[in-house]
Every structure is written in structure tokens, then in C-alpha cells.
């Protein structure tokens, strides 16, 4: 018994720094935020006291439901776009790039060398009314009225751009692991190139698809930088609302309540997604 405990001591020891970190920087703040979301402000003082104020949640949802749903819509569309753009790229890097592979991977990661804010600000210039990109999109009919900036299109484009590497890298990792002999076996067994893709390559890369969509979708829902710089008043996302409640309006309870609702809804969506789309890919079991 003692020996068994002693044998486990090194494991606990190794876990300690991570556990401590999570407690200090995640669990404790989460507790205070939860408490804050149920506080009432003492009028005119910016001081709060705890009153189990559930109406904070009700008010937050009633006031900001538009931005809430818009966040999920934008993040959803951006995630699908990332998948559609990222999958072929990851496929080419994994199977066709040859000696260009490392250079292409570097190109995928390269934007991280510039800060997120600067990159998004650059998009503000790219999508401005005077830019050639806008003019070009206008001539081919994709920018009605000659405006892109301050539209939902601009916000979604920004999110897609910013989160694309988070889609490509897990996709690449799962594609790169596929044994090319297995793909040859498929062709040997009368499968054309396209049916080899749908019956073998895609199913084997599902873990990457699931990981990539989660890594893109979850941060995208809570993002506020893209909507801040590229969107207009009608494109504000829930992140913008929370940011402004905290920093401008100083309505801490409402901001905390909204944060909690956002967290809960994301968790539910992810749970449903993994349950139905991802269980096979993640657990390695065949759906029957």
C-alpha cells in the first residue's frame, strides 16, 4: 500500500506545476467571475455585493441575443471556409510537395511572426474602399456598392484568414501520418482517385478535421478583434459586447454573465459535434 503510493509520488510531482498553474490562473478567476455574474452593483459606487442576481443572465441574453447568434454564424461560416481552403492545401503539402514541404509549412506558420493585431489592421487596408482588391471584387460582382469594410463579409474573411493555420496544421498532421501504401492498396483494389479520396483518405484524416474545426471554431466564436477592425456597428460579435461591457460601460456583472453563457453554449455545441461527427474519428471505432 505504502509502496504503491510511493510509486505514484513522481507522477504527482510531475503534475504539480501544471495543476498549480491551472488553479491560480483558471479555477480561481473562474470562481470570482462566476460570483461576479451573480452580483448587484451598489448604485453609483462601482462596488458590488453578492445577491444571487440571476436576472443578470436574463438581461444579458435579452439585450445581446443578436450578437450572440451572429458570433456563432460568423464563426461557423469561417470554420467551413477554413476547412474548404485548408484541406486541399494540407493535402498538397502532405502528399505532393516533395522537397517544398518544409518551405510550404513555414509559409503557413509565417504569419505568426507578426502580431494578430497588426495582421488584422493590414486587412483593414486591403479591404478599404480604395484598395485594388475591393475594386477587383467589385468588378466581378462580389462587392456590391464597392464596399467591403464594415460588412459581415469582411469580418468573416478576417476570421478565416487569422484562423486558417489552426485548421491546416492538424489536417496536415493527420494526412501526413497516412501510409501511402494504404492509398496504393485502394487503387490496386479498383478504386479510382476520387473514390480513394472519399473512402480512404478522408476517413483516415477525420481526426485532423475534428481537431482543426474545433481549434478554429472555439476561438473564432469569442473573437472580437476582427469585428472591431473590419466590421461595422451591424457586425458586432459577442466578444465586442463583453469587451465593451467590461472596459467601457463597466457593467461587470453583465459581462461575466455573458461570458458564462458563451462558455456553456460553446461546450454544448462542441459536445454535440464530437458526439455525432467526431466520435469515430476520435475514438477510432467504426460507427455501426
Amino acid at each position, binding site marked *: 500500500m505504502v509502496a504503491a503510493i510511493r510509486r505514484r509520488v513522481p507522477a504527482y510531482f510531475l503534475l504539480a506545476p501544471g495543476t498549480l498553474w491551472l488553479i491560480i490562473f483558471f479555477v480561481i478567476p473562474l470562481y470570482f467571475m462566476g460570483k461576479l455574474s451573480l452580483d448587484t452593483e451598489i448604485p453609483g459606487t462601482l462596488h458590488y455585493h453578492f445577491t444571487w442576481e440571476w436576472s443578470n443572465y436574463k438581461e444579458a441574453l435579452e439585450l445581446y441575443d443578436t450578437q450572440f447568434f451572429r458570433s456563432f454564424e460568423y464563426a461557423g461560416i469561417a470554420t467551413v471556409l477554413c476547412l474548404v481552403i485548408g484541406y486541399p492545401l494540407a493535402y498538397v503539402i502532405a502528399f505532393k510537395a516533395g522537397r517544398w514541404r518544409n518551405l510550404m509549412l513555414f509559409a503557413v506558420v509565417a504569419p505568426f511572426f507578426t502580431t494578430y493585431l497588426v495582421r488584422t489592421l493590414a486587412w483593414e487596408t486591403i479591404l478599404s474602399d480604395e484598395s485594388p482588391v475591393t475594386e477587383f471584387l467589385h468588378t466581378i460582382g462580389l462587392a456590391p456598392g464597392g464596399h467591403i469594410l464594415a460588412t459581415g463579409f469582411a469580418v468573416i474573411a478576417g476570421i478565416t484568414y487569422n484562423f486558417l493555420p489552426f485548421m491546416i496544421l492538424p489536417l496536415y498532421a493527420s494526412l501526413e501520418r497516412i*501510409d501511402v*501504401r*494504404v492509398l*496504393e*492498396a*485502394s*487503387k*490496386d*483494389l*479498383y*478504386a*479510382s482517385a476520387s*473514390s480513394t479520396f472519399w*473512402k*480512404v483518405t478522408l*476517413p*483516415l484524416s477525420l481526426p485532423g478535421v475534428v481537431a482543426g474545426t474545433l481549434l478554429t471554431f472555439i476561438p473564432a466564436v469569442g473573437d472580437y478583434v476582427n469585428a472591431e477592425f473590419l466590421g461595422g456597428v451591424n457586425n458586432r460579435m459577442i466578444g465586442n459586447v463583453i469587451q465593451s461591457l467590461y472596459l467601457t460601460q463597466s457593467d461587470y456583472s453583465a459581462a461575466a454573465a455573458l461570458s458564462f453563457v458563451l462558455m456553456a453554449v460553446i461546450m454544448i455545441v462542441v459536445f454535440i459535434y464530437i458526439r455525432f461527427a467526431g466520435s469515430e474519428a476520435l475514438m*477510432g471505432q*467504426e460507427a455501426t
Partner: protein
Amino acid sequence: MSSELNSEVTMDGNQGAAAAPAAVSSVELRGVTKRFGDFTAVDDLDLTLGQGEFFTLLGPSGCGKTTTLRMIAGFERPTSGEIAIDGEDVAALPPHKRPTNTVFQSYALFPHLSVEKNVGFGLKRKGVGKDEIAERVAAELQRVGLAREANRRPSQLSGGMQQRVALARALVNLPKVLLLDEPLGALDLKLRKGLQVELKRIQREVGITFVYVTHDQEEALTMSDRIAVMNRGHVEQVSVPEEVYDRPTTTFVAGFIGVSNLMPATVSAAGKVRLDGGPEVGADTADLANGERCAAVVRPEKLTVSMNGAGPEAGRPRVEGVVESSLYLGTATQIVVNLGGDVRMTVLVPNADEAERQRLPGGGAKVSLSWAPEHMHVVRESPNGNG
């Protein structure tokens, strides 16, 4: 009664029809060359395989045997030359349109599919009906002894079982040619031996042409109807196993099959060779020109070792040398004799009598080796080097 008779007649007729095309070659390679950049993997290869033959491509790694197999499967396009299957040119066809199936060295099973779905994969792509697929898959799994594993994943099976799934997955499609790329290479010795016998049994049962790639000469000799010994992109000899073993035609084949007991020599006259630093010996030199360099082969078990100039019986050719090592192997003693230069001969002396074994020469002893003339065989210098 009469209908029974009729059906018998029809069956006979069918058998006759099936036997008739045996004259057509199953696989034919004409002048096939494959280059990867500057490297020539396969050089101007000509091979003709008979219907239902167990044909082995044997050679060391890098000799071009796997590249040849992959060209028949369609994974590689020949740089030049023609490949025909059942008389039909397949050079322009991609793998999925060829009447061949492959068993890969690494098995290459689909990890996301059950054993049953792995085996049914090819039939499904060909558009075979659901019921027929189920029936044929079940029969094939029965044949390889995996009926109870139908619903398991490949990762849940042992290496030997995975190998059987790979075999069933290929055979269930009844290909015209089955291509096997070192299929037993990843298995341990005991399992290999068992599966060799099973593979041979299955091949006889289905009557499909097998093209089998291996670097294991023993495996090739056990299983094949014919063997092509390959060296640096060339075929050195194509023949039945007994012929390849007993009458190799080149120094490379002699060395690769069994122990390399080669004495360099020159053809001195028709029907005669002179061993370097040794006597002139009568031999079959039919394929060789006068003055051509060659080598004389005598198998280790056919050599007699004698000491102190004790004369051998008359008519037995002999050479002199020094014993380098003597190794007790249990049933026999292996003596290595250096004839001078780099020429070493291995002699196997059966350990029948303990007293006699004690009298065998030890290291450093001067000995002479002799053999019956009919046990010496002359091979030409391999045109492609000795690997």
C-alpha cells in the same frame, strides 16, 4: 439420369475450355526499363510467365525485383518497354484498371475498416451486389482461417493474421495475376514456414498466376515453379528451383543460392577448364568460348578433404590449400580452406564417427581437396558483377 449425364458433359467441356488458354502467356514483359533519374532500376527486362505459374523474382535488395512487381501492378510506369497481361497491353492502364491485385509487404490494410470490409473493398468498387460480396468475403475468410475475425479491426490482429487478411483481400477479386511483395518478410521464422506451405496450397487451389518477390533464397526454392534471379536490374537466370540450385549459370547466381564455393578458371579447350593455379579439368563448357573467364562450383557436401598428400583415388581432380577454420555444427563439421589469393572453399564433413571427427585437420594444416568430376559445374562470370 440423362440430365446428370448432360451436366457432366458440359463440365468436361468447360474444363477443356479453361485448360486451352494455358498456351497464352499470363504476364509478358518485353524490353522493360525503369530509370529513376540517373539510376537504372530495371534494365531491358524480358520475362514470360505461364498461366497459373508460381513465379518468383529473387535477388538482393536494390536488384529491381520490387520495381518490376510495381510496374506489373501499375504503380510505376516503365521508362520504355511493354507489359502485357493475358496478351493485352496494360502499359497505359492505371492500377485500378488492371486485372492484378497486390499483397504488400506492410499489408497496407485499411485501418478504419473491419476485416470484412477490408476484404470486400475491391468487390464493392467493382459494383458487385451486396449479397454476393457477403458470400464471397465469407468464403475467402474461411479459406484463410479468419471467419471468426470478420468484425475486428486490423489493429486487433497479430501480424500473421493481418497477412492473411491482405491475402484474402487480394484473392477474393479473382485477379488474373496476384502480386506478392515479400509478403512474409515481417513475420518470424516459424510463422513464415507455416504460411509458405499455406500460400503454396492456396495457389494450387485457385490456379491464379502468382508473382512473388523475395530476397530469401530458401523461400524461393521451396515455393516456386520457376525462379528469376535478379542482379542490378538484370535477370541472370530463369529456371526451375532444382536447376537454379544445381546448375547455376553465373557466378552471381551460384553465390546467391547457397554457399559460394567458386574457383576462378579459364576455358582451356572445348570441354575443359584450367583452374587458376590448379589442374585442367574436364567440364561441360557448352555455353562458353575458348579462353573465356569462368568459375568452377563444387557444393560443400561434395568435397573431400585429405591430409599430408594422401593421394585421392585416380581420376578425381584436386587442389591444395590451407585450413583457415574448422567449426563444429552438430551434425557436420564445416571446414574453410584457403586456396591462395581470396579463394576460399567451404567443406561440410558429416559427423558420423567421433573417432574420425577427431582426425579432421585443424587450423593451419595443409590439405588437398578433391571431388568427383561430375560434381563440378562451370558458371560464367556474371556480366553484372557479383553484387
